[in-house]
């Protein structure tokens, strides 16, 4: 099993450079928005964080289906890894949103459809990770969490369409929105650059988190081998 290597370092360096470029573009290249002015630049990490969280949760969804269809542990490892990484991005969304909202709306938070459904999404994946700690048997844990994980994903389209379905405090979409919506071309380019940077971060974190699950599995197998070979020796405490 590889734990590092030149390839990994090159990828990490590339993502680090992309992050610097994205940050520079968001702060200095993107034009200033007319009404919100400087604070609007939070948009360039708030929106891509949300998109990346949705993608991570979609990976959880696919991994959970994969596990139920094949019962192969690697799908379960992918599921929990993507859930944890997705939760980090969802947390970023829930933190940057209120910081942006306070100077613009005058309030930190409101229980409108978008904000509420996003908070529920965060709670559901926290519950997914908590559920895993309550189930000791690996196969039972993977099976139950796969079903729960598929259920959790149902909130993602609800979050996405909430601003289209209901009247909300949250702004209407600027990408793929209706008539009158849209984004300045430079803003759009910077937005997608920032998304590329965050996708790079997601891939790096996901790879490491998956490796953690692989190692955990290896450790459990080794502990079992130790217990079998010499029961008087200490084995891993879960």
């Amino acid at each position: 099993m590889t734990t590092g290597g030149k390839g990994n370092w090159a990828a990490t360096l590339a993502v680090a450079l992309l992050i610097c470029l994205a940050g520079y573009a968001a702060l200095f290249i993107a034009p200033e928005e007319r009404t919100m002015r400087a604070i609007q630049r939070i948009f360039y990490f708030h929106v891509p964080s949300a998109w990346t969280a949705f993608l991570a949760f979609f990976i959880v969804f696919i991994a959970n289906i994969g596990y139920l269809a094949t019962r192969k542990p690697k799908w379960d490892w992918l599921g929990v890894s993507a859930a944890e990484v997705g939760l980090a991005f969802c947390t970023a969304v829930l933190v940057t949103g209120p910081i942006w909202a306070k100077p613009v709306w005058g309030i930190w938070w409101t229980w409108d459809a978008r904000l509420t459904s996003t908070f529920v999404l965060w709670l559901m994946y926290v519950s997914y990770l908590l559920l895993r700690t309550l189930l000791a048997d690996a196969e039972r844990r993977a099976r139950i969490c796969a079903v729960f994980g598929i259920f959790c994903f149902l909130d993602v389209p609800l979050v996405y369409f909430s601003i289209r379905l209901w009247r909300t405090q949250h702004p209407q979409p600027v990408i793929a929105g209706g008539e009158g919506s849209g984004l300045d071309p430079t803003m759009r380019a910077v937005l997608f650059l920032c998304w590329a940077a965050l996708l790079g971060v997601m891939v790096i974190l996901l790879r490491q988190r998956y490796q953690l699950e692989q190692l955990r599995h290896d450790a459990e197998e080794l502990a079992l081998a130790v217990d079998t070979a010499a029961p008087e020796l200490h084995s891993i405490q879960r």
Partner: protein
Amino acid sequence: MKNFESLFAAYLIVWAIFFVYQLSLGQRLGRLKQEIERLKRLLERK
């Protein structure tokens, strides 16, 4: 000026979240690798 402070805080917090998570991952990986080495040594002793 206040908006710039909020903007700076938002960017700082976002990257702090990812940095702290990365640190946590690194620590957990390190602990597991040590545990695996310990178990391998135990097995070799048998």
